[in-house]
């Protein structure tokens, strides 16, 4: 019967996440160190800009409001009622409080020591994940209104101050080891050995980087006798060196390395190779800085031998996704990274498929081909493993070879889609996959197909367009995809009324809110009373972005929020609206991914009652641009004249 009071505190805390995820013993340990704090009405618990102490708070009784003070204005950001948790972020992230907390009525708070909690977070993935998702959910707070964000420096904060993350700024890079270009290889190698480094930067008289020589160069070029020991080091260096600015984040470095398939980056004063070298970063440095890492993940995909391996890697990347969402890493980075992983998985699946075909003795045809991702994959927005949408273009072949060629690619696509299925990507319910003979076509056939849709825009054709127009080459001969794009743009130019049909389709999505600003939920079916975030909030934005970007004649920008960003650049008059739409789309992607991770599904449907008040508010705000965009489409494409 000892510890009566901690037991009582425990009984309360266990009713609320993340404490409900902890064992009684652990929770009791935390409860025993709680400080109960009484707050008079209107009393400030902490103020924006204050340095955090060592406690965060759970509301035991009463209510606490969180405000942001900005330019003399006080903006209510959140309210915590009984069981609500606040004041934790600065303790984990470092830095001062970003908000002011004030008791809105008499309140009793349980102040929990962060160190007793930090240990738990490290050992308890459930609790850590809850915090992850609640932090990420509050990313919604970042939603910007017309002007200025709720958290002006939030991005910077998340990027620079979160000690758990990969997005740390690389302030401390090693002092660079450099040498002039004329130095003999032997002496350069001597410097490298003395400084115990695997690379040396060759610099000019102003210390700007000319090239880089690595252990690998010494192995491949010198040890093999290709280059003599007395020749100048510039004979073995790789040039130019990819340079990055000093404020780049670890995540940024990773992306750069993955994209360019290089293992060393040079940090220079202004990020170009024309300025002074400040440091050098190797992949190994990155690995040391952090455990799980996108570059490694992508490389492991490249080495994967079967679907199970792909599945495992994709699951690991989902762990990383969680972490990123939790850390409020920008959606633009997250989607770039996840797209990279998805693409690599598809590439690997196609390669494995080809190998299987060969093992079965099926001869690869002469024709080159290109594997396309469609839909959300094509837009590079697929964060979760939603269904696969794909298509295949093969080179034009003589008529007599065509069916044989198609048969091969269909069989290949069959293997690939099956493999992706086993890796956790559901089959497309509409069978929009390269294994479907309708979507495994030669270039000319594809051109005909698109022309058909464009010149005879029946409703079904328009629907197809929304999926197929966002195609993106993932594997194979990319010029095939470029030729098809060019054909489509030409056709649209010729048949400009087509865009009006597309625009009309874009405004026909069902509205997200009722007249009384409630969420419109499904009225029947499996998802009765749930909100369909995809068709009611995301598709209207994606559809609008597609029409507008096609209308602007821009190819190669597939991402919805990048499309909006591009549009903002092209049409400054509507810049605000487009930026809002881009923000809204990022926010929706984040919500959808979080819901999906929470419910172990595609995240498309969820019940509005699951959302907190703040989340509901944020989502509602994100619907704002939909309406404005639809009226813009209506005017621009004169949809009132088009009828129906």
């Amino acid at each position, binding site marked *: *019967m000892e510890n*009566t*009071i901690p037991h009582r505190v425990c009984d309360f805390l266990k009713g609320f996440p993340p404490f409900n995820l902890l064992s009684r013993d652990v929770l009791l340990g935390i409860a*025993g160190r*709680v*400080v109960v*704090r*009484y707050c008079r009405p209107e009393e400030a618990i902490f103020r924006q800009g204050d340095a955090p102490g060592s406690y965060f708070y759970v509301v035991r009784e009463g209510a606490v409001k969180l405000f942001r003070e900005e330019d003399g204005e006080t903006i209510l950001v959140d309210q915590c009622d009984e069981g609500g948790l606040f004041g934790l972020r600065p303790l984990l992230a470092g830095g001062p409080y970003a908000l002011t907390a004030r008791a809105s009525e008499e309140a009793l708070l349980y102040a929990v020591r962060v160190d007793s909690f930090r240990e738990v977070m490290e050992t308890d993935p459930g609790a850590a994940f809850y915090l992850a998702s609640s932090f990420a959910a509050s990313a919604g707070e970042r939603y910007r209104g017309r002007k200025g964000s709720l958290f002006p420096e939030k991005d910077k904060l998340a990027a620079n101050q979160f000690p758990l993350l990969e997005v740390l700024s690389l302030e401390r890079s090693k002092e660079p080891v450099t040498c002039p270009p004329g130095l003999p290889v032997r002496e350069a190698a001597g410097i490298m050995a003395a400084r115990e480094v695997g690379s040396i930067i060759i610099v000019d008289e102003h210390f700007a980087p000319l090239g880089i020589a690595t252990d690998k160069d010494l192995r491949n070029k010198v040890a093999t006798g290709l280059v003599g020991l007395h020749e100048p080091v510039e004979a073995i260096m790789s040039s130019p060196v990819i340079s990055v600015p000093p404020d780049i984040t670890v995540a940024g470095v990773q992306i750069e390395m993955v994209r360019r398939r290089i293992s060393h980056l040079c940090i220079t004063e202004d990020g170009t190779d024309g300025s002074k070298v400040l440091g050098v970063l190797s992949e190994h440095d990155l690995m040391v800085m952090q455990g799980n890492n996108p570059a490694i993940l992508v490389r492991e995909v490249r080495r994967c031998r079967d679907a199970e391996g792909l599945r495992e890697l994709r699951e690991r990347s989902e762990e990383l996704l969680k972490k990123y969402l939790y850390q409020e890493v920008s959606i633009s980075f997250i989607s770039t990274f996840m797209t990279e992983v998805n693409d690599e998985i598809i590439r690997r699946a196609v390669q494995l498929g080809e190998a299987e075909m060969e093992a079965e003795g099926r001869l690869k045809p002469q024709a080159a081909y290109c594997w396309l991702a469609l839909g959300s994959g094509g837009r590079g927005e697929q964060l979760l493993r939603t269904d696969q949408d794909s298509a295949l273009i093969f080179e034009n072949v003589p008529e007599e070879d065509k069916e044989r060629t198609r048969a091969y690619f269909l069989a290949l696509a069959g293997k690939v889609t099956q493999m992706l299925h086993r890796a956790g990507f559901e089959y497309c319910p509409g069978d929009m996959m390269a294994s479907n003979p309708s979507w495994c076509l030669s270039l000319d056939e594809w051109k005909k197909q698109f022309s058909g849709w464009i010149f005879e825009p029946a409703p079904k054709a328009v629907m197809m367009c929304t999926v197929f127009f966002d195609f993106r080459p993932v594997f194979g001969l990319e010029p095939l995809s470029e030729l098809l794009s060019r054909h489509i743009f030409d056709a649209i130019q010729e048949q400009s009324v087509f865009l009006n049909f597309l625009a009309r389709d874009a405004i026909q999505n069902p509205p997200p809110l009722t007249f009384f600003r409630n969420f419109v939920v499904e009225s029947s079916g499996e998802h009765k009373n749930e909100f369909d975030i995809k068709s009611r909030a995301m598709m209207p934005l994606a559809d609008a972005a597609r029409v507008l970007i096609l209308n602007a004649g821009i190819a190669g920008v597939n991402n919805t929020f990048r499309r909006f960003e591009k549009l903002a650049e092209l049409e400054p008059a509507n810049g605000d609206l487009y930026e809002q739409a881009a923000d809204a789309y990022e926010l929706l992607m984040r919500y959808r991914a979080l819901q999906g991770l929470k419910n172990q599904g595609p995240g498309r449907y969820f019940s509005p009652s699951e959302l907190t008040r703040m989340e509901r508010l944020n989502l509602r705000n994100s619907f704002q641009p939909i309406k404005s965009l639809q009226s813009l489409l209506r005017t621009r494409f004169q949809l009132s004249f088009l009828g129906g």
Partner: protein
Amino acid sequence: MDFNFFRKKYRPRAGSPDYWRDYLACFGHAYGRRSPLDEVRFVVFDTEATGLDIRKGHLLSLGAVSVSGWQISLEDSLELYIRQDYAPVEAAIAVHGILPGGRQGSLSEEEAVIRFLAYCRHAVLVGHHIDFDAGLINKSLYKMTGGKLLNKRLDTAALALRLAGPGQVRQQGAFSLDNLCRQYHIPMSDRHTAAGDAFITAILFLKLLARLEKRGVRTLGRLL
């Protein structure tokens, strides 16, 4: 601040035990009437006993928390269970659920009182109907040292009375802990353990204190 160095009751007699000397030494400069409430350490405590009569009752358990700067730190709390060898069963046992006979307790009454003194030092003592609880402790203390508790005392029932409207004053039982908890919205889980009641009383005390503060009570003197 009161300076008590030279007052007789704060001077230990020859042969006083160390714990008693230490306790008395704490009062070298105790809180005075002008001490601001924010700076005072209050010890809110409650006891359970074998009976409701101070003369016959013996301590069974003792719970205390300290309140300072509007906070209750659970790390700094006290929960003691006392071994009583004889069993004068009375109604109180049925109420408290603590059986005498050493099943719960491991400390002697004397040890418990010594630990309580070391815990409170010169803090202001707070309790609900504190005279009963302080009386029990004083009874032991007198046997042990010939002295009694020197701390300033506050009764939450009396504080509540100061805040009460005339209607409430006439009401039967209006100032029982149960009724006050109801009035001030304090949840009453596991009542009737000394520590549990001390915790509830501490929360009640904070709420009463805030209301009195609003009426201009800012120093200890105005509170006593």
